């Protein structure tokens, strides 16, 4: 059963992404409200994929990606960045620090499911 960590400060987006992820058969969704909360969840639960927003309080998505990709235990977990920032440089910045994919908001649910399925190999 794949386990997906959704890191998003907006309850609306968290609920929408969780909704979409539950459509991937048998996926377990773990929710985190910011980067620090995400690191806590990572240390206590098995995670197969991370979906993270960039703009979040306490610790933003870019910092989280950087920490995850520099950690021996987590570096192989694929990270998909979801954000309102649509500029090319933001995308390049996210990918440069190790994010595996980038999805601009407003998200198209089918696109998100397809992308996540690719990384989960389902």
């Amino acid at each position: 059963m794949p386990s997906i960590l959704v890191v998003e400060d907006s309850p609306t987006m968290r609920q929408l992404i969780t909704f979409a992820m539950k459509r991937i058969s048998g996926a377990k969704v773990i929710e985190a409200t910011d980067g620090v909360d995400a690191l806590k969840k990572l240390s206590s639960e098995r995670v197969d994929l991370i979906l993270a927003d960039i703009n979040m309080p306490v610790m933003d998505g870019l910092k989280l990606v950087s920490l995850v990709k520099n950690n021996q235990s987590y570096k192989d977990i694929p990270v998909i960045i979801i954000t309102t920032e649509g500029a090319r440089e933001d995308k390049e910045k996210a990918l440069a620090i190790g994010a595996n994919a980038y999805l601009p908001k407003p998200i198209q649910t089918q696109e998100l499911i397809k992308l996540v399925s690719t990384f989960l190999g389902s």
Partner: protein
Amino acid sequence: MEKELTTKKVDEFLEIFKKGEEFTKDLLKENEKLRYRIAEMEDSLQGSAGEEKVRVFEERIKKLEDEVVAVKERYKRVEEENKDFAAKYIEVEEINNALANLYVASYQLHSTLDFDEVLRIIKEIVINLIGAEIFAVLLIDEKTNDIVPVSTEGVTLEAIPKARIGEGIVGSVAKEGESYFAADLREGGDVEKGMPMVCIALKIKEHVIGVIAIYSLLMQKEGFNNVDYELFNLLAGHAATAIFSAKLYTQSERKLTTIQSFLELLKEKPKK
């Protein structure tokens, strides 16, 4: 005499032998003819059997050809049905996603009675689900009839000009209750001039309580789709109800606190 008799017998024998020879020759000829005739008949018999086989094979080929045509037609029908199902699947997926968006938006809007929280949720919906970059939520002040900004994104509250009912795009939407969409969404709106590209009336039945004015979309958002228009409709009704309920709740809480304080005062008086 005796010699003559012998000669005669020899002649007779020779004649009989000659006749026998001729008879044998005739028999051989006849035999040859009969052999030829038998061979002919055998050939003829074999020929008719071959024709029969050809006929059977031809019938079988025709039957198979008919079956191939029928299978091809069925395949074509199935292919068309498949295309139909694929198109319907995409349609159902789109509806499913639209319903998920609407459900989440509606669920979030009615998840609180805190006025500021309701405004934050409206902002989240407009940013994350619709994809707006600069927008404002404006409410009608019933005492002054001004349309006052109460929450903004991408621009300060002070930068949004107040409007009056019936004046400009915002005022007209507030008066008529009909949402406004600019003819060319790519051009965007103008904050300073109070000209949004989209203006959604927040209505409870026919009573307009405010508007959502969108001035620009996120750069990756090229236009609106069906889900966006459904979200606008949902916001028009549900956001208005959520704002109204939160305001009433806040007022009632304030009144309750005042009354409770007053009651406390009354209770304290007899002691003195």
